[in-house]
């Protein structure tokens, strides 16, 4: 080892340099810088990622201006009406490779816009790339209306006339009249949906239960069905009444139509019953655009999806995700805590316990799809199948619990996350000073009393830390869920007004799977891309919110016990 005292005697530049670097290294500064850089990069990456997702996802809901664009290429002239969905620049060389004959190319790189032109029913590809330098004129017609339809996506056009039962209506202010009539149609549609959901589904549910009851009796050798039959016919009568009123509403709904002129100059008819929303972005003020923006986002969060998930909201997936995570936490917490308490407090600390601990730690590293397979084989087929055999004989051959469902998904994820709960609870238990345990025992408390009154409350922050980690892991997990309960489209929510209200056997929707399904399984990639970002953003936000809640809770508890733990 060189000592610094000798430096002045050998003043060679090289040497001085290497020594000062060595000294710098020995001081520890480089490591501080290295970790600071790593932290910085991570923060930038996280913030950047969330910003990108938020930007791409949230911009979609803004009521963009609708442009009427005239442009030409070497063959023809076109008129396009639509929103600018995406802008990009490509290099000149690339452009010329594909368009060798384009002579009007201005200097610089080539700008292109992707236009969302809607009207899918009429002009097939509803997204189209255009080269900006070929545009001849671009205007924003203040009368241009965007129709969000329940099928076939958006329509863009100007109003030509309104029709009631095929007759043209003579009014001056077509726009307000149209809005009023759309309002009427949508409230009629709401009534019809409510009737469908509340009454008819309920009757169906009861009819199904009657059928099961009858089947149950048959299995017991009881063929007495008179009382069931009367109930059944009552229900069917009621059903027919509802059907009748549904038909009446339906007729009313068919009354109105609007005729619009679309980009190519032709006219097109839209049934008012098909219109979800309509707006005139080109004549909206910033404030009304903002109002529209907020309400669109709200609808996105609170409505069912339509058109194979490519339109509408994501409420069922949002609901399913949160419910599943909550159920998972409810299952994993007691299980993990009890296991940890046994391992740490009661089991004799020997080789066996050490082996179990190693096994638990390794469980956390098993690929999640393996848990899915296990869940399907063990929970769904074995346990679920047994439950069906024992309690749901009547429903057979249709499985009740012997098929993927909410409870099995929650259990599978609970199994997947139980190691983290065990590990952090054990850590918390070891941190409790033995002086406090002795203090409790010396007052005549038994071991169990000491555990419940002193040790567990003090270890609760550690338990919560475990649950936080479990939630963080579970909320983002998709692969195992595909095997044990998540579906692309669930017919009903797992909670509803029919007894027993929480239906653990039902299949459910999940944001993570929704992202996969919308992003990679839908034919119209351009249309759904913003939805993928918006859904991803929501999933991230949910995880952040769930985590923050648990972290705040833990910090409050920790503050209470901090002094005692030191």
């Amino acid at each position: 080892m060189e000592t610094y005292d000798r430096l002045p005697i050998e003043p060679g530049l090289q040497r001085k340099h290497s020594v000062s670097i060595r000294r710098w290294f020995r001081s520890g500064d480089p490591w501080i810088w290295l970790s600071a850089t790593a932290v910085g990069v991570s923060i930038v990456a996280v913030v950047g990622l969330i910003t990108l997702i938020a930007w791409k996802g949230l911009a979609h809901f803004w009521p963009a201006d609708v442009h009427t664009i005239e442009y030409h290429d070497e063959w023809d002239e076109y008129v396009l009406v639509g929103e600018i969905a995406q802008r990009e620049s490509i290099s000149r060389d690339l452009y010329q490779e594909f368009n060798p004959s384009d002579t009007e190319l201005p200097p610089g790189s080539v700008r292109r816009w992707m236009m969302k032109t809607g009207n899918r029913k009429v002009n097939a590809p509803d997204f189209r790339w255009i080269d900006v330098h070929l545009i001849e004129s671009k205007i924003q017609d203040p009368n241009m209306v965007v129709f969000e339809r329940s099928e076939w996506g958006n329509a863009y056009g100007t109003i030509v006339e309104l029709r009631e039962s095929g007759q043209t209506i003579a009014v001056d202010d077509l726009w307000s009249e149209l809005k009023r009539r759309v309002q009427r149609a949508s409230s009629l549609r709401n009534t019809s949906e409510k009737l469908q959901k509340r009454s008819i589904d309920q009757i169906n549910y009861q009819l199904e239960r009657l059928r099961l009851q009858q089947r149950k009796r048959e299995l017991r050798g009881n063929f007495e069905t008179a009382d069931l039959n009367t109930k059944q016919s009552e229900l069917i009568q009621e059903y027919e009444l509802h059907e009748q009123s549904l038909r009446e509403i339906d007729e009313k709904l068919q009354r109105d139509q609007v005729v619009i002129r679309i980009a190519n100059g032709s006219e097109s008819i839209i049934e008012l019953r098909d219109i979800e929303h309509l707006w005139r972005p080109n004549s909206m003020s910033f404030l009304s655009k903002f109002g529209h923006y907020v309400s669109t986002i709200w609808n996105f969060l609170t409505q069912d999806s339509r058109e194979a998930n490519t339109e509408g909201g994501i409420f069922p997936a949002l609901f399913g995700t949160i419910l599943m995570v909550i159920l998972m936490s409810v299952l994993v917490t007691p299980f993990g805590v009890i296991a940890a308490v046994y391992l740490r407090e009661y089991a004799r600390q020997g080789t066996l316990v050490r082996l179990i601990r190693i096994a638990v730690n390794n469980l956390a590293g098993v690929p999640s799809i393996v848990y899915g397979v296990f869940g399907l084989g063990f929970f769904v087929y074995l346990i679920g199948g047994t439950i069906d055999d024992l309690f749901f004989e009547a429903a057979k051959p249709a499985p009740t619990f012997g098929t993927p469902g909410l409870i099995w998904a929650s259990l599978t994820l609970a199994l997947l996350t139980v190691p983290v709960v065990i590990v952090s609870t054990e850590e918390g238990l070891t941190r409790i000073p033995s002086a406090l345990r002795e203090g409790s025992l010396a007052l005549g408390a038994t071991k169990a009393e000491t555990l419940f009154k002193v040790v567990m409350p003090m270890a609760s922050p550690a338990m919560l830390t475990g649950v936080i980690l479990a939630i963080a892991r579970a909320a983002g997990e998709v692969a195992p869920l595909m095997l044990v309960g998540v579906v692309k489209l669930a017919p009903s929510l797992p909670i509803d007004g029919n007894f027993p209200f929480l239906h653990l056997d039902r299949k459910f929707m999940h944001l993570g799977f929704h992202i996969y399904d919308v992003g990679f399984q839908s034919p119209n990639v351009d249309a759904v891309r913003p939805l993928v970002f918006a859904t991803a953003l929501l999933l991230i936000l949910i995880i952040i919110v769930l985590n923050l809640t648990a972290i705040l809770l833990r910090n409050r508890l920790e503050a209470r016990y901090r002094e005692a733990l030191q």
Partner: protein
Amino acid sequence: MELPDSDISLNVVNLSLSYADKPALQNITMKIPKQRVTALIGPSGCGKSTLIRCFNRMNDLIDSVSVTGRIELNKLDIHDKNVDVAQLRRQVGMVFQRPNPFPKSIEENVAYGLRLTKEVPKSELESRVEWALKSAALWDEVKDRLKDTALGLSGGQQQRLVIARAIAVQPSVLLLDEPASALDPISTLKIEELIAELKTQYTIAIVTHNMQQAARVSDFTAFLYLGELIEFNNTRTIFTNPRQEKTEDYVSGRYG
């Protein structure tokens, strides 16, 4: 030093204890009299804490400990199979070397032992807490903040709080392991006064390193050295006229 049996609270006969293979106590035989203060003195590591932890079977918690010999509390063998350890510890209260209040409110700390059994009805809990805090000379300082956390008390107050906690369940024996080791002179004085007062009702065994303290508060003194009981006698005799040379060396401060 002969005492009638009825005046003996703890009777220790031939007690030996070892941690794994390391002997910590050897053949201790002593009688701790009722409603008197017995001081345990001796150099650090001689086994004082180990000995008093035997009296409420606190050493059961340490797996490596093995004990031989007998300890009787009011003539009953405390190692008997039928003895409920929790019950025993309720009779033999203990205050540890370092104050260890629970991270609960002052009131909850004192009521802790009471809530474990149904002996004291809920309605009397409050008055019992007040009584215990008064007995421990802490009431006046904390009566306005009973609901505050006990961790906010000073070290001396915490020590008196754990004493209050121990006497709240009204044990017959109170074991104090250096209760004043971390305290300032005023708090120490308060605790010594407290001991003098408590001895009218309780049998007290106190471990201390402070010779003056032992001389001031105790009626009897036991001197331990390397796990052996060297001498056990009236405090006055131990300090003025010890029979053993080692005792004399120790109490006169020649080593230890």
